[in-house]
């Protein structure tokens, strides 16, 4: 049984939600949405790469780099999810405001990482598709378009950095009753 507050106003609803709810959702978003972005990017690149490689088989090995950049995005999401879950600690009700803050910071960290990796995966995927087509026509274009992809994949890294900074100060003190 936990400590029960009297309902005063519905605007206090957030006070009654455990910080672990938000942390769990944050961790789920961090890995789930990152993998969504990576998968989306891989299929965009992969379908074009297969079609273009029929005419120009030489492009397959170089253009797998695009797929690898997309995959890296999923790995970022998994790494951040593991880091976030190590920040969880046991604490009792009533929740200390600092614990509530820790819960919210894990939640925001998950959203940041998840959505940054989603759009990064999409970006790298679309560029990878155009890169495969250009490489099939003219092989000097590959390296130049790869530079665009590198800038695109930096977006995922920004998300990871900010996410880790957000969650680094999560502490879960227990409040004295």
């Amino acid at each position, binding site marked *: 049984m936990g400590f029960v507050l009297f309902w005063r106003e519905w605007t206090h609803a957030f006070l009654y939600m455990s910080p672990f709810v938000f942390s769990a959702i944050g961790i789920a978003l961090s890995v789930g949405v990152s993998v969504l972005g990576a998968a989306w990017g891989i299929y*965009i690149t992969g379908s*074009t790469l*297969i079609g273009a490689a029929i005419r120009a088989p030489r492009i397959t090995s170089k253009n797998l780099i695009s797929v690898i950049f997309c995959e890296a995005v999923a790995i970022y999401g998994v790494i951040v999810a593991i880091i976030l879950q190590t920040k969880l600690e046991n604490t009792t009700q009533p929740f200390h405001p600092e614990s509530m803050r820790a819960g919210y910071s894990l939640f925001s960290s998950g959203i940041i990482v998840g959505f940054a990796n989603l759009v990064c995966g999409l970006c790298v995927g679309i560029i990878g*598709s155009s890169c495969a087509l250009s490489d*099939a026509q003219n092989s000097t274009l590959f390296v130049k378009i790869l530079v665009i992809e590198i800038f695109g994949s930096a977006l995922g890294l920004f998300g990871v950095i900010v996410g880790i900074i957000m969650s680094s100060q999560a502490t879960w003190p227990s409040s004295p009753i």
Partner: protein
Amino acid sequence: MYGFEALYFNVDGGYLEAIVRGYRAGLLTAADYNNLCQCESLDDVKMHLAATDYGPYLANEPSPLHTTTIVEKCTQKLVDDYNHMLTQATEPLSTFLEYISYGHMIDNVVLIVTGTLHERDVHELLEKCHPLGMFDSIATLAVAQNLRELYRLVLVDTPLAPYFSECISSEDLDDMNIEIMRNTLYKAYLEDFYRFCQKLGGATATIMCDLLAFEADRRAVDITINSIGTELTRDDRRKLYSNFGLLYPYGHEELAVCDDFDQVRGTMDKYPPYQSIFAKLSFGESQMLDKAFYEEEVKRLCQAFEQQFHYAVFFAYIRLREQETRNLMWISECVAQNQKSRIHDGIVLIF
């Protein structure tokens, strides 16, 4: 949603788009045309084509080669590419590709009906039909006497059925009626295709509607020029123009009353894209108009490849191959008849 097609186009169309861009890489370049223009005989032509995509198609042909064989094999390549893409396509790309073939179906129907009118043998006519526009009951067309029978016996089962509602009559078929029928069918087909592309939306709609508008305007000018001096009344002429395109509706009003080529030129001068085409021809000359229109068409088709994630690349590829087949036919004829100085009059370079 225009601008976001990159997110979901590749699910169904990514593979085929890459395939069609691979085919496009195999179109003949200016260097190939240079080599071909210096050929002395059709065997030289065959040798130069052996290094291109046409190699496997011409490899087994015995010498002496005829120009019709070369053209037939080139068309065969186009048909093989088209069928390869059509069998792998899903909706709506498969409907889009089928729409591209309806134009050829109309040409085949008119060819057989005209040939029957002039009492040619059906089998000979069937061999001259374009393979992209073949359908099952095409040989039955030779039996029909008037448009109503034509529709009831054969065309009601083909995809051309909805285009016939405007031109069914019980009059017997003769040359004039057949030309009017061809143009009415083509008008209905272009309008249907235009509506379909608009429904698809996105980059496909933008690019295809531009290409189809150019086609409609070109046909309007061709109809006008071909009907100068014939019995076609102005109202009939008006009815053959499509209801979309840059010239609709004011340009059509003016074209309908044109009586000679210079009046047509005066009408076209009001529209900047067409004014530049007509500026290339000197006064009174109308033979080079076809070539000028082909050049403009090729330029627009090449621009369709600049964007990714849309269907217009398929349409553009098929049209560019057809242009290439026309080029090869002209080159082969010039080489066979020893008139190599006239080769450059008739070909339109793609790259």
